[in-house]
């Protein structure tokens, strides 16, 4: 079923109902109204954080460069296994499920992208990637939250910005309301039986509706509205469309729940999920192996999401990001160490795909950063700014990325 979030927002003012009326009844009546027209602002951005620093060179492989093979005798993806994209770059074979998206020009890659800060610490680099202010540690909020703070175009619903995980990540930390959902089914009051849960929910709702003031009042209203919406959604009963087959594991579950919320039309605007397991210092593998396994899961999850959403992908952009890339040369343990630039994927209807974007600096030692890593030629803020400006319609980029003026041409991932 479809719930209009505009109607929902109007019904959110439970505290307006005077004592004696049953606010829940009125709220339910409001939910039952079917919207006559869909709201126009349905664009959605999904951010996947490859936490741990993905090896961009084995994800989007520069198979046309002999240096790649020379530097990685044990872990290079053999030429015969690479899925060629443009004669120079190719996809890792375990991302083959994404090749149709590339061919339909809804998948792009940005290579040699990263932070202007030289740090090779996961801690610092993740912090900068999420705060959006490389080199500045005291920034209190994350850039996705700052986007929400300055966005006046989209409805402020409980599900506007959601991180799928146990805690709110730094990227969504800040004054704009955002939600961390570890498990859609468990969101809300917990009780052994549904009847007890409903009773407890109602009791707390009445307590807060009558006695809460200030932010406690507005936030609790949002909370109970969200719980109500989820109850109607019945997350346990969700069946993906078009035979989409999400892989087991956290990423598959997160993307499935994101798809579910998108289809429920509850006002999801920005979604976030972590994907871990990229810190491949030891036995990274090539066509098969450790990294291949992680890429396989990523590809399968993205393919399932795209299939599940179907035409809905028209309004959706999914992108991957990672704190830095890995060394060009393999290390003594058949792995790679912390590097500098990496590659990011951008997919969805609004994407100008079928291209590897960014200026390729080359793999020659003289062209590398500090002689060892892929140099950064695209500041990650250029891509993020493009996603916010061209996809979501953000206008004030200087408030979101303070002290930085993005390249006005952007990397070119989204149709202008």
């Amino acid at each position, binding site marked *: 079923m479809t719930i209009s979030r505009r109607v929902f927002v109007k019904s959110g003012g439970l505290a307006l109902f005077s004592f004696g009326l049953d606010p829940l009844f009125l709220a339910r009546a409001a939910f039952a109204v079917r919207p006559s027209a869909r709201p126009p602002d349905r664009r959605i951005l999904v951010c996947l954080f490859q936490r741990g620093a993905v090896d961009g060179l084995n994800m989007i492989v520069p198979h046309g460069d002999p240096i790649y093979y020379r530097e990685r005798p044990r872990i290079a993806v053999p030429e015969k296994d690479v899925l060629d994209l443009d004669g120079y770059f190719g996809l890792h074979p375990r991302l083959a499920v994404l090749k149709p998206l590339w061919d339909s020009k809804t998948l792009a890659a940005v290579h040699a992208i990263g932070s202007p800060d030289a740090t090779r610490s996961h801690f610092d680099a993740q912090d900068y990637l999420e705060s959006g202010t490389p080199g500045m*540690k005291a920034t209190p909020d994350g850039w996705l939250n700052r986007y929400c703070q300055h966005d006046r175009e989209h409805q402020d619903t409980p599900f506007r910005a959601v991180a799928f995980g146990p805690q709110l990540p730094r990227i969504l930390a800040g004054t704009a309301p955002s939600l961390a959902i570890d498990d859609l089914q468990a969101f809300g009051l917990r009780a052994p039986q549904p009847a007890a849960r409903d009773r407890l929910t109602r009791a707390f709702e009445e307590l807060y509706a009558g006695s809460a003031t200030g932010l*406690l009042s507005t936030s609790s209203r949002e909370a109970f509205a969200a719980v109500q919406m989820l109850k109607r959604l019945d997350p346990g009963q969700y069946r993906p469309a078009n035979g989409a087959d999400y892989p087991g594991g956290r990423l598959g579950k997160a993307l499935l729940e994101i798809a579910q919320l998108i289809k429920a039309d509850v006002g999801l605007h920005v979604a976030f999920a972590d994907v871990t397991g990229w810190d491949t210092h030891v036995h990274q593998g090539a066509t098969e192996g450790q990294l291949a396994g992680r890429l396989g899961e990523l590809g399968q999850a993205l393919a399932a999401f795209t299939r599940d959403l179907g035409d809905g992908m028209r309004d959706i952009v999914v992108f991957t990001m990672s704190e830095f890339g890995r060394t060009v040369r393999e290390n003594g343990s058949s792995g790679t160490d912390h590097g500098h630039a990496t590659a990011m994927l951008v997919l969805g209807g609004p994407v100008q795909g079928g291209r590897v974007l960014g200026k390729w600096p080359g793999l020659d030692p003289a062209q590398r950063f500090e002689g060892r890593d892929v140099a950064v030629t695209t500041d990650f803020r250029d891509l993020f700014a493009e996603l916010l400006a061209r996809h979501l319609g953000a206008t004030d980029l200087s408030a979101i990325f303070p002290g930085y003026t993005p390249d006005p041409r952007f990397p070119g991932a989204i149709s202008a």
Partner: protein
Amino acid sequence: MPGTALSPQDSAFHALNRLAYGPRPGDVLRVAAGGVLRWIDRQLSPDGINDDRLAQQERQFAILAYDRGDLAAMYTEVRRERRERKRAAGETAEGSDSVGAQHAAPLPKQTPLPTPADPMIPKSRRLAGEFADLAVVRAALAERQLYEVMVDFWTNHFNVYFAKGADRFLTPDYIEHTIRPRAMGKFEDLLIATAKSPAMLFYLDNWESVAPGASPQSPLSARRRGGQGVRRMPKGINENYARELLELHTLGVDGGYTQHDVIDVARIFTGWSIGRPQQGGDFEFHGWAHDRGEKQVLSVRFEGGRDMDEGIRLLKLLANHPATMHHVSRKLCQRFVNDDPPDGCVDDAVATWQRSSGDIREVLRAIFHGPDFWAVQNVRAKVKTPLEFVVSAARAVAAEPDTSPRLAQVVARLGEPLYLHVAPDGYPEREAAWVNSGALLDRMNAAVALAAGKLPGVTVVLDSIVSAGDADQLISVVNEKILGGTMSENTKQVLRRQLAGISDPMQARALAVGLTIGGPEFQRQ
């Protein structure tokens, strides 16, 4: 209180909410009867308060028996074992300083957690969890309540991040030996101690900050600085500590310093380093790394040719700078009076700071004796942080926390994993940071679980605080014991309705307590 509109009982409840982590059963009446100002004065002299019971409890925390060298050795051992295991299994080795899962541990639902003695949990990880729980236990059980509140305040003011590399084993030492002994002393001493602490030097990278072009006489010793071999040599100054020192620790973001000041502060601290951080080493000044040129900070000239002494001189200058007095006083007023503190209490605090050369106890005394602290509009004006909520809830029902990390995991689940605030600004004091829909639902769930005796990490026996009777009696007792008599009419009516259908007195009591602690009044202080 002179000029206050609060009754003695309301005053006691207010003071116990702000200077302490909320009242235990009976505290409000006890403090009101003995005189709230006398209680405040006693709290301002923690050394005179007997805290044997807490000391006894602390002895159960194994982590206090290890120094940072022991912890470093343990940590290195665990990492070596893990590397070998991974190598054998051909799996990913997560980075040494990647954000670990320990702080993201969800509130246990159905699946039982491993017991604390589970041999599958590496010792170092267990100790990390234990250390977070120690903070919760101290906050809950200490008689020196104001002292524990101030430890939390300074821990956030001088924030470090447990999960950043060597801070995994440097942080406990930092809290025990840098913060705690100076929490009620002179600000200047605390500032100097944090500047020299290995945990802070590592966290804000100052240990790697060297004069441009400087290199140690023996390259071998430099390579050993990282313990297992550093990947790259530091190549110049690192401004991180300098910037946060000015912006967060002392002057404040509007404190009137320039980028040039930041650079010269960084130059002054070149060479302030750590001897073998990976082995839990101590502060070390490296003369070879120190920039001996002339510097100028806040228009004060630091002549060339000096060593470590110019850093101490700078810290003293900063500690007693008017902008620092204002910035830190304002933060204290924000903590104790209002998220947006009135100018009056800040001015009083600054004047006292000036008079007492930054004696923290005297500054606090001025705040607690000022009219703003007792003004009606500032009473219940603040929302509890997750730590304050969990600890005050445990205290309200006289709960006994155990030594497992579970109660700290509840605090983490509610959004405040202790020692794991990644940015140097520490956990925020303003309510906007804590109140959101997901967090409120989590608080309600934690409250219901606590009242039902199902919150992990604490033992609750409600008999000790509430005697079950009829619904009105029950509501009245809960109101007195948990809300200090401040329960709203609406809350009473909702409770009455909810209790109407329940015949089992135990169930009724648990519901009333759960709804009260999870309800809106208890979120405030």
